[in-house]
């Protein structure tokens, strides 16, 4: 079945892993020194640090830690490339774009929908059901969040209605995938089509040419007044949306739920060896249904943030592939909440960076090209580093009683 890389000894693993992590840090450092606030103009320092990072990464791979090792090499090379570009740009432009506080805040903003969807995906996949339909569930959450907020005139109403919508769509996927044993990827793709069509249809039918009202109820920001003036932290965390804090809470809660409760143990067993779970008396179908519905609800939350938390409106197909990036974040993160969150942050960072590039006029056309960054990163991740990452053993296979 799945191949596992041999690890020689525990000691080797520890030093190899440590070297790999150091390599990744060095790689990031190599790029960072060329950026504000340090803004080295000379390439020597970044290159030296970068080479050290490559060396650490190479050493890690020889110790059997291929994942972090290759990650370190990639990070170091990327760091040197970043340094090259940074030293060519003017310091003024750099400072405008690389405002770390704003960047962090923006990264969290872009990461939040991904986090929700990725954690949702985790529940589904850990129970053994592939959920390609995260994109559709996010979109439906976005629409019904907006419509719900409009109809009930409160953002809480919007959230609740979005949760119901996400659950409903997830139920469709669950029914076809679990009960009818349809191919799960086909079913997920269908869900995406349906969501696109349904949200588009209802949007035009209800809001027509006007679009969603400009006074749509918004999910409030959380203003931490004490933090506002603190250097960096003020910009970064001072006034983040409530959903962003909720997403972090979700990460923590889902970790506990999945790994520290009996329910989580049971979900994982259903995803690894459903027959074993069945013989122990665990209801496989029901567990999978619940997991998929939860994934739909979480993805919908992510979509709701997009519409009434961030964009303040709904536009057709506004998720624009984020559901798939969330899936990639999940895989990147090894089907674990913290890992998925870290990956979501990384992707969020690249989106935030892409957006900020638009602040400099001469760089504006590159904005579009930069939009490919999350997808390229995912491709590299899925291909190189994570290619052999091990999913739950029974994922994607319908269970036949």
């Amino acid at each position: 079945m799945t191949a596992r890389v041999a690890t020689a000894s525990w000691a080797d693993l520890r030093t190899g892993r440590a070297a790999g992590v150091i390599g990744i840090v060095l790689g990031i450092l190599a790029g960072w020194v060329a950026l504000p606030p340090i803004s080295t103009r000379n390439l020597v320092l970044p290159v030296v640090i970068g080479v050290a990072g490559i060396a650490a990464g190479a050493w890690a791979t020889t110790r059997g830690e291929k994942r972090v090792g290759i990650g370190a090499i990639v990070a170091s090379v990327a760091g040197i490339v970043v340094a090259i570009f940074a030293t060519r740009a003017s310091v003024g432009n750099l400072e405008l774009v690389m405002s770390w506080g704003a960047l962090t805040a923006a990264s969290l903003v872009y990461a939040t929908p991904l986090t929700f969807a990725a954690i949702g995906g985790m529940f589904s996949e850990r129970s053994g059901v592939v959920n390609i339909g995260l994109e559709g569930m996010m979109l439906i959450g976005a629409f019904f969040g907006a419509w719900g907020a409009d109809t009930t005139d409160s953002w809480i109403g919007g959230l609740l209605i979005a949760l119901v919508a996400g659950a409903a769509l997830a139920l469709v996927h669950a029914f076809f995938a679990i009960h009818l044993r349809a191919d799960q990827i086909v079913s997920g793709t269908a869900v995406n089509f349906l969501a696109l069509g349904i949200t588009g249809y209802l949007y035009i039918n209800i809001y027509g040419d006007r679009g969603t009202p400009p006074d749509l109820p918004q999910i409030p920001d959380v203003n931490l007044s004490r933090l506002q003036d603190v250097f960096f932290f003020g910009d970064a965390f001072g006034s983040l949306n409530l959903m962003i804090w909720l997403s972090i809470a979700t990460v923590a809660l889902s970790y506990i739920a999945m790994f520290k409760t009996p329910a989580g143990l049971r979900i994982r067993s259903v995803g690894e060896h459903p027959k074993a779970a069945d013989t122990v008396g665990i209801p496989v179908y029901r567990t999978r249904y619940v997991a998929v519905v939860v994934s739909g609800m979480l993805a919908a939350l992510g979509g709701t943030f997009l519409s009434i938390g961030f964009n303040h409106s709904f536009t057709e197909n506004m998720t624009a592939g984020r559901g798939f990036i969330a899936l990639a974040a999940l895989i990147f993160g090894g089907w674990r909440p913290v890992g998925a969150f870290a990956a979501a942050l990384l992707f969020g960072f690249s989106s935030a960076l892409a957006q900020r590039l638009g602040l400099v006029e001469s760089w504006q056309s590159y904005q579009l090209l930069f939009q490919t960054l999350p997808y390229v990163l995912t491709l590299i991740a899925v291909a190189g580093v994570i290619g052999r990452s091990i999913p739950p053993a029974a994922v994607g296979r319908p269970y036949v009683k």
Partner: protein
Amino acid sequence: MADEPILELRSITKRFPGIVANDGIDFDLRRGEAHALLGENGAGKSTLMNVVFGLYQPDEGEIRVKGEPAAMKSPRDAINHGIGMVHQHFMLVPVMTIAENIALANAPTHAGVLLDMDAAEKRVAELSRTFHFALDPRARIENITVGQQQRVEILKALDRNADILILDEPTAVLTPQEARELFAILETLKREGISIIFISHKLNEVLEIADRISVLRRGKLIETVPREGATEAGLARMMVGREVLLRVEKAPPEPGETLLEIDGLNVRDDRGLPAVRDVSLTVRAGEIVGIAGVDGNGQTELIDALSGLRRSESGRIVLAGRDITNRDARYVLDAGYGHVPEDRQRRGLVLDFSLAENIALHDYAEPPDSRFGWLFPGRLIARARRLLQEFDVRGGGPRTRAAALSGGNQQKVVLAREIGRDPRVLLAAQPTRGLDVGAIEFVHRRLVEERDEGRAILLVSLELEEILSLADRILVIYEGRIVGEFGPDVSEEELGIAMTGGGRETEAA
């Protein structure tokens, strides 16, 4: 011991599309006894026990536990009635620890919300001590031996307070030594008042451990007999319904030139650990060499390396004079190799292809089946028709989909394909797994015929009987090494000892 049976099955009938798996079966289990359920593959033993355990619902009939009628709608019901089942293929989650697997059923918690793994681990340690299981609660299932895994399964049942234990082919994956350990454990369990049902198709084991034996054949109960007075031959007759030739009749071998030579082969398994260690063997034309061993001792890796599907670290393989070491499957097949893989549905056949397409599986890219990439379906069909007739394949013609055939006929197709290519060396891995007696006889006879045609045949099997019946020379593989070579008259005991690494004899009888 109370007189009333602790478990009673009355007239149990279970049907599946096209087949009656259990037909009006009456069965009872007394307290503290070990009752064996005997029958060949497909007789309905596993189905019956799955009904008892709630995995299937009977179409007719009644189950009574401790005198009270009990409907088993799911394993939960069975467990609540004190029934535990140890399946042939373990129901354990490989990546989780022993404690986690036990906790799946009944997890101890802090305040009902958080998992209390410490308590779970303590419970495992406690039970393990009571029954002398020697298990480490923190060990991951994927890292412990098969014998230990089986004990974990039994532990699971005991943890749920089972007083009826069903074991499905428990010794299928054990060495004779481990089997003996298991029997000792079963005796302990019996003493503690636990009643045991024991599914098996192995006559000698059943005679050793069971108090009573029930024989099933084609879904019906033939007879229930006490151990006293039961004989192997008698039981076999009940199982099959006619006198069974326990051995194939064959002439003594006339071996010729060496067609297969393996020299100092070392192969690693999927985890990078050495699976085949310094193996050397030869097979000559006109002989059948059998490799006996418990599953998981390197047979799979050896076969893969020989077939060109796995890299070998060192050593040489020479087939009919050609060095095929570390060559791909294509090259090996072209060199005169035929391979009957052990899982015909997964590896032997493309079930959705027609029989003609399956027969062409190796050679479709060569003339006359094709030329310059262009396929000639007519030629595939013609050749297939010939071979299907020769091998007496029933159930369809060249255009029939392979999935429509029965297991026995499917295996005949695989044989037809491999033998039809006139290989110098033929490897047969578990060639009769899952087949009924008639098909087994066919396969065995055919293999001997091919041996007499001058082919070199390497037989790898987990069934000692099959090896003893067919092989001219028997090699025993243990932990990746060839630890013994025997003649066909060796006893099962000697083989069993060699299979567990004891008594390294190397002299052929």
